[in-house]
């Protein structure tokens, strides 16, 4: 029984317990600051009762080591993740989604060691798919990237808190007090970066289905930059002009995609752009193929700008005046639909040496 125990860990706790005189916001802030924890914003105090409620109904072993998060190499268990979910403000029932996101980040191809320590501002983009969107109250429509919706805001924040606390990815430059995140500037999406696929407004199968996944729900994690907006009100009929604008955003030398040809882009189409494209008979693969053809620059210009770059062999064989694609495969251009009415879509560039991972959730 823990209710009569003195300060100290509960017998079955994977996480240590800290005794505080109260859980006033000021007290909790001081507790965080003394340990270098938190994202700078207020948190919900992770009391034993709240963490137990977060764990209630979790279908797996609460002490399973989902993965070890670098660079700190802390063990991410559902129990410790639940502490972070509470702190982030997640509603009960969200833990399986946070566990799925953590599994994704621990896949070798995600390269979490790089993502959680680089000078690049990369954050972890989290996308929720399928039945979990409605079941947990995610907003897949207007303002899906926020602010305002609890589920979107808190799942993304819980991922970040796990990376800060378990992974030790706290800002660390010369003279800074953190542990190991060397991001020169960081970016706003390092606070939270989560949205939901708008399946109802998508003319195509849900994104996980395009990967061959048949689960009821899924969570995608990807190491990405902040999104860049595309505005097109002019196009009707053939969708080329919308996609041409996207291609100009993709074909910049200012992203790491230019240096790493295996890197992905996420193209988040607003429903209206998606409808225009689909009405012309285009499938998801047609959008991928078109952008692969259009997002190119002279190979000689690539070489003039980058001395050491990770381009696949056939790109290196191009003549200077040949057009080199921004990515080595059309499959690296990931297409999904999210957001509400309006003539806007998003291009999301990659950190580079990381692959997105989609984890089924049932």
């Amino acid at each position, binding site marked *: 029984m823990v209710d009569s125990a003195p300060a100290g860990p509960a017998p079955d706790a994977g996480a240590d317990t800290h005794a505080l005189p109260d*859980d006033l916001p000021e007290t909790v802030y001081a507790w965080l600051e003394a340990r270098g924890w938190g994202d700078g914003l207020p948190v919900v105090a992770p009391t034993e009762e709240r963490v137990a409620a977060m764990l209630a109904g979790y279908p797996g072993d609460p002490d399973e080591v989902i993965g070890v998060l670098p660079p700190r190499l*802390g063990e991410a268990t559902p129990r410790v993740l639940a502490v972070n979910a509470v702190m982030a403000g997640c509603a009960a029932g969200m833990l399986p989604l946070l566990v799925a996101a953590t599994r994704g980040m621990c896949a070798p191809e995600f390269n979490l060691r790089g993502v959680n320590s680089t000078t690049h501002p990369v954050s972890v983009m989290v996308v929720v798919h399928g039945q979990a969107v409605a079941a947990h109250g995610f907003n897949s429509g207007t303002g899906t990237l926020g602010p305002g919706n609890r589920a979107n805001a808190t799942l993304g924040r819980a991922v970040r808190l796990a990376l800060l606390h378990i992974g030790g990815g706290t800002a660390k430059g010369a003279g800074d007090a953190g542990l190991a995140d060397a991001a020169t500037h960081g970016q706003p999406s390092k606070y939270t970066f989560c949205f939901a696929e708008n399946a109802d407004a998508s003319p195509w199968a849900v994104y996980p289905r395009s990967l061959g996944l048949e689960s009821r729900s899924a969570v995608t994690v990807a190491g990405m930059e902040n999104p860049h907006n595309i505005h097109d009100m002019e196009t009707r009929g053939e969708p080329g002009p919308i996609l041409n604008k996207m291609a100009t955003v993709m074909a910049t030398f200012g992203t790491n995609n230019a240096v790493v040809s295996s890197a992905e882009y996420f193209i988040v189409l607003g429903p209206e752009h998606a409808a225009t494209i689909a009405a012309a008979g285009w499938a998801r693969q047609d959008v991928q193929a078109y952008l692969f053809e259009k997002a190119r620059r002279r190979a000689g210009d690539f070489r003039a700008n980058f001395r050491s770059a990770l381009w696949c062999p056939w790109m290196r064989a191009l003549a200077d005046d040949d057009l080199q694609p921004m990515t080595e495969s059309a499959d690296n251009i990931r297409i999904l639909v999210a957001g509400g009415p309006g003539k806007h879509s998003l291009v999301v560039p990659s950190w580079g040496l990381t692959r997105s991972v989609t984890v089924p959730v049932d």
Partner: protein
Amino acid sequence: MTVHLLDPSGRVGEPAKQLAPGLPVLTGARIAVLDNLKPHAGYIQGAVARLLAERTGAVVTLEIPKFSAARPAEPEVLDRLRESADLIITGSADCGSCTSWSCHDTVVLEQAGIPTLLLATAGFTEIARQVSSLYGMPQARVLTVRGPLGGSSDNELDAMALEALEDALVLATTTPSAPDAA
């Protein structure tokens, strides 16, 4: 009114690790460079290796790149190093992911029994020590150069290498102990 809050950071299970012994005599020793392909990393690491060789009668036997600074050294690269080197100079640690993965490589090579100097710029030395500590090796042989490497001329890089030579000699020929635990 006492409340009990749960710790959000979880356990860390990384055990402490030992360094490979330093080489008492460098004369005749084989020095290899593991280049992570960051701009000028291979250049300055090679410069340090050659200065060490000139000073001591060691030989530079191998300068080999890995695929990317943001990934660990490939097994075949590690095999080549094990076959070819008594002393390794690796790095550079002058950004975040490259520092983190260079620390990883350093620990792997030290565990393979080869003293390994991790070349770090001044701006990233502290993070290199921190990450090495997280790997259980706070005493890692971090060789600090002034930096930054990116944007520096060959003459500046040569000067940085020369400034670091004495430190490199000490790190290669001794076995640093772990600093006092914080």
